[in-house]
């Protein structure tokens, strides 16, 4: 499973750097611009793309991604168009891993099996569902596995070792450690906790899966600091805020994003 994801990790390892995972909301500010943004991000050095599915009630997201989802919904975004976007990205950049990042309701309404089939047809490599813990309801994990799509689970600072072990057992691709108890875009101040937890999680999973760290990583310095102990670094809200600013200024957001991704990539290259 997840050949592209595994390859992205080994490519980065061979080049002596930590992979950069970049999140953007699909259709923010519109479908075509988000396609250009994600292609530019991949070309500028993002190793893995996380495509956020716009949803009306993003209760795990902070103000930046909430606003991005509002812009996306206004331009007709949703699960259907997110899958279409993935298909377009897959055709444009055949080797870049695509992670679909979303909330449970659009998947539940479609049905996990039909969703997993559609995701496979769209060329999706992994799925991360914020409010569908696999340990609570394995239906999504099973449906994805049947389509050879990785289930990327979230682990939090409050996750107990027993539960972390159970979650890691059901996962493939990589594990996503949430750096703090909080929402996306909050400020990450203390790295001692995340550093310790990442080591613990790596040990619990027997080193089978890489551990990416996300939430609160906004600058190249943050990325470098987290990259010193994580297996991959996820940046989301900071990139979404660039789009917000460019849109407000009436500019094309692609050049700003391309430059930002390049600085993140440089920071993660030791």
């Amino acid at each position: 499973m997840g050949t592209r994801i595994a390859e992205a990790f080994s490519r980065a390892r061979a080049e002596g750097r930590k992979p950069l995972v970049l999140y953007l909301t699909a259709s923010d500010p519109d479908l075509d611009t988000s396609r250009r943004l994600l292609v530019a991000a991949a070309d500028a050095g993002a190793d893995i793309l996380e495509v956020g599915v716009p949803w009306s009630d993003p209760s795990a997201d902070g103000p930046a991604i909430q606003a991005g989802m509002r812009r996306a919904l206004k331009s007709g975004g949703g699960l259907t168009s997110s899958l279409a976007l993935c298909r377009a990205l897959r055709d444009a950049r055949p080797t870049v891993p695509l992670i679909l990042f979303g909330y449970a309701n659009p998947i539940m309404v479609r049905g996990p099996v039909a969703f997993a089939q559609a995701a496979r047809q769209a060329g999706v490599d992994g799925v991360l569902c914020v409010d569908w813990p696999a340990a609570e309801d394995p239906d999504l994990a099973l449906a994805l596995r049947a389509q050879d799509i990785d289930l990327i689970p979230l682990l939090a600072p409050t996750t107990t070792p027993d539960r972390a072990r159970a979650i890691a057992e059901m996962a493939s691709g990589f594990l996503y450690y949430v750096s703090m108890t909080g929402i996306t875009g909050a400020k990450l101040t203390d790295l001692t906790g995340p550093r310790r937890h990442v080591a613990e999680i790596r040990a619990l999973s027997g080193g089978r899966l890489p551990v990416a760290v996300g939430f609160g990583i906004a600058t190249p310095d943050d990325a470098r600091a987290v990259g010193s102990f994580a297996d991959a670094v996820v940046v989301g809200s900071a990139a979404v805020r660039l789009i917000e600013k460019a849109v407000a200024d009436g500019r094309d957001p692609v050049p700003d994003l391309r430059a930002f991704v390049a600085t993140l990539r440089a920071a993660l290259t030791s």
Partner: protein
Amino acid sequence: MSTASIPRPGLFGSFGGRYVSEALIPSLDELTAAWQMASRDPLFLAEVDRLNRDYVGRPTPLTEATRLAAEILKATGRSVRIFLKREDLCHTGAHKINNCLGQALLARRMGKTRIIAETGAGQHGVATASACALFGLPCEIYMGSVDVERQSLNVFRMKLLGAKVHAVSDGTATLKDAMNEALRDWVTNVRDTHYIIGSVAGPHPYPTLVRDLQAIIGREARQQIVTAAGRLPDAAVACVGGGSNAMGLFHAFVPDAGVRLYGVEAAGDGISTGRHAATLNAGRVGVLHGARSYVLCDDDGQISEAHSISAGLDYPGVGPEHSLMRDTGRAQYLAVTDREALDAFQRLARTEGILPALESSHAIAALPEIARALPDGAVILVSLSGRGDKDMGTVAKALGVELH
């Protein structure tokens, strides 16, 4: 895959569960365990009983509505007896306080030092703020900015009670968005904060916890109606938004096959207009605020804006146990429009001298339809979940009356 070893708690059939951020799971485990202990602890239960008696004013009375029954006889040709369970007489004006006191006590027992809650009409916010004032706990309430506007009196009440009120302008700026923001606060401050969810919705254990704390409505009513009518009712009726007063009433009667259970949803401008909050009548199975249940959403899974004249019913989701009772047929769910609820509001005021909450008016409005489905002489128990004082502005506006 060793999924079989992992228990899946809090399911009502295929509904319920815990569809939340991973960071919240340990707190839900902690809350589940704390409630299991507390609900078997005689000292804790005695404290709840004492507060219910001395602070809330329980047991609330059962009032026979004979003049309302006479109007229903005139309208339907059906002679029925109607009994109102008077949750409107609870301290703070609605059944919401039953849940808030129990959860605040539980939070204190768990060592939590801060309380948050969401509110729509403001009744749950006022009840939470009152319980927190009583226990000396800091309290923050999330409320959609649209609701802050239309329920300004309740906002003022919460502030007088010492609570901090946050207006939420995201999304539709109503109850569902207030709940999203409360979840964001909770996931950020999960170690010291208890979130008092106001309905039988949300992730496990909330639907069970809130039901257990509200079940006193049905327990009292069951005894009272046997005394008053000499037998169990033929039907028990309550309005359903998230569904807490309905589940509180129904729970004691679920094993009584002879008691028909009727939930009444808000049809707003009418279900066919799309402007309604009748989740069980017109929704589909999805996930909102942590539970698998019926929701109002479009084909893509985007949550729809709910519409009801009653802010407390203006919610596009519903508690998971109601979804199960709908599917099994143990309860039937009807829907009445804003107009019908307003008419019922006035009918009860005129015939019985009781101004019901607009939420409870929905239950009253469904009585003619329910009476027609029952034999002559039938006994109907209705949950009058709250009083209408908070709704004077809304009702005046709907009736074209200007207040000064």
